[in-house]
């Protein structure tokens, strides 16, 4: 158990006892990470991110006594953030991708646009690696973010998203394939297609 987790667990216990200063310390400790996470989950909407941060810590304040120590405090707080993001998306209906609402273990299917696009269409499209990120669904992007940016393990990500570890692996695998595909296109087609056709 890391010293950070022990310190956070101590603070959370104080929050459960009504200690506002302990909440302030938790807020200071987690705000940078949560802000980064929420920024990407909420499409870079500053106002929405700030509102969501407030909602997350209001929820921490209200439910601190419910924390039983079965997960790290960081995992617990990110669970709250994840649920609130899903709730916000349902309320606003601003995302095109289907979002699991009941935490059920649905199988992830490949992104339909990736499957239906022909090789020639992809070449014409001139996608970059950055575009590969933009073309990932929110749930695939979220898994990447939680692992590579927030430092959670496979099991912790599964706890946060309330899905089996197999589903997390599946989403990571899809993201990996997506990047591998785009990277291969870059290697095969270093020039814009229009320029190659003029040269031919």
């Amino acid at each position, binding site marked *: 158990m890391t010293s950070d987790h022990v310190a956070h667990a101590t603070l959370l216990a104080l929050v459960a006892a009504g200690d506002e*200063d302990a909440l302030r*310390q938790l807020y*200071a400790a987690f705000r940078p990470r949560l802000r980064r996470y929420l920024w*990407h989950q909420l499409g870079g909407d500053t106002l929405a991110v700030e509102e969501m941060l407030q909602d997350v810590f209001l929820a921490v304040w209200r439910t601190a006594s419910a924390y*039983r120590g079965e997960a790290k405090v960081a995992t617990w707080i990110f669970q709250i953030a994840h649920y609130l993001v899903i*709730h916000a998306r349902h309320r606003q209906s601003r995302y095109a991708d289907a979002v699991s609402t009941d935490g059920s273990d649905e199988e992830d299917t490949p992104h339909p646009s990736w499957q239906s696009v022909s090789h020639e269409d992809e070449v014409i499209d001139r996608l970059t690696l950055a575009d590969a990120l933009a073309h990932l669904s929110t749930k695939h992007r979220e898994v*990447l973010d939680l692992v590579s940016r927030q430092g959670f393990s496979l099991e912790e990500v599964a*706890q946060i998203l*309330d899905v089996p570890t197999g589903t997390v692996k599946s989403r990571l695998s899809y993201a990996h394939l997506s990047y591998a595909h785009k*990277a291969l296109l870059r290697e095969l087609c270093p020039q814009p297609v229009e320029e190659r056709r003029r040269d031919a």
Partner: protein
Amino acid sequence: MMPEYTCAQCRECLLWYVTEQLTPAEREHIARHLATCAACQREARPWHAVDTTLDDADHAIPPDMAAASAWSTLKARLPKRPIIAETHHGERALMEHNIPNEPELDIRPRDTRHGPARRRSLVAVTVFVLLVALSVALFDVLGPQLRHNRGIGSHTTATATPAPCAPSQLKAALPANSYLQDISMVSATDGWAVGAINNPSEGTATPKTLIAHLHNCQWTPVSDAGASIASAQLTQVAMVSSTEGWAVGSTLKLFDNISQANGAITHQWMYDKLIVLHYTNGQWQQVSVPGNTSGQPQALHMTSSNDGWLLVDNGKSHTDPYTAYYAYTLLHYQSGAWSVVPMPFKTPTMILSGLVATSFDVWLDGYDGLGGIIAYYQGGQWHTWGGSIVGKLSPALYAIGMTSDSDVWAIGSNYSHDASGDHTEALVLHYEGSQWTRAVLPDLHAQQSSLMRISVLAPDDVWACGDMDASYIQANRPPQGPLALHYIGGKWQEVSGLPPAVASISQVVAAAHEQYWALGAIYVPINGGKDGATMRGVLLSYTNGAWSIASGQA
């Protein structure tokens, strides 16, 4: 011999390997496998791309400038929670009225969403309501203690609420020639004060550090390694809990001996090296810090056991005989280590005086040839005000305090000149989140006045102390009186009832409801005034509506 990883094992870990989240042993496993497996190397390349693009995406996030104000907003929205407190009989009582609201969405993590937990929570709420109904009277008694023991910009960080000492119990068993410079209260019955034995300003005996502890209603000196450092004094103390705190000061270097008319030798001391003491495990121990440690500490503020700030005055030097250059070092304590934070100030003639901090930012104030200086450091960036700050003032600022970044006080004096000469007038500025304004002060009836120290105990409980007619020492006459102002009920008023001998008041801290400790000084003529005068430090106590000198230092 380490067992080799299979391709399946390797590929499962690649993302964590690329983002450097594996243990050293795991990394070595993966590295050994990748060194000989071209297929897994190809698998790793997309993860490197993922890491790069996610990194780029993070860099597109604008800096976080709203942390402190967002916390203030959040704090104001927090629904009331039961506060469990110990009464002096050891009973536990709930002291708040409101029942926490249940969230609209069941956002409790999976490990808590069980039927029995819901039933237990309902029972808990019922019991809570009954306890609240029985404990309203207790809150009326103990609530003000909680208010007085919190506040940013002061040194109080109390969490427990023991019964305060009765006035007849308070004692100060300090050595002769004790000279206290700062005080920090953990609770009504637990506090620390620092200074020196033998006032360096008096110069007749070699000073050494003094640390005093309030325990069982009595101030007594401690004899840790950090105390009794010869040729040194301590000037600030900040406790974060009853078991941890920091004290700072400096060693002193003798640079001159002056013979007095009466044959006595007066030593002249100058600040030499910074001393930083850390109180843990019941002991004050000296620790080293980075950066330029020449000079003396200017200000210390700890926001928690993992966060604090220290401003060091590295002294004055001259680039030429006519130009003084003042240097400062700002140190930040985070997660067990001190580090240097560069400051943005360009003018070498500035003087920085005050510092106060929260978990999100640090504020400084001071002055230079152009006027006042106020700056805060937040999210890795500095923001500054300079010059007149407000209207057409010529401020010199000496201290700063706050409860949040929308409730900041900066104090000092305003300089003006007219046909009758130079004037300095006590000055208080307030920042409510968007602009600075000048506070209205009572008429002090003083030719000169200046505020030097501030204690912000709560938004409506602020103390500012300083001097009136500061030239009385040089003019070899008694001072006009101490300058102590109290902000309460939305306005500033003079503190009345100070003992007549007290010439100045500095630090004020709350011990309990309507009980304060303060450090001050009394005017002491030397040889009936023939050899001038000096100021002797005193410890003051305010109880039962009256001030008294608790420790009449020799």
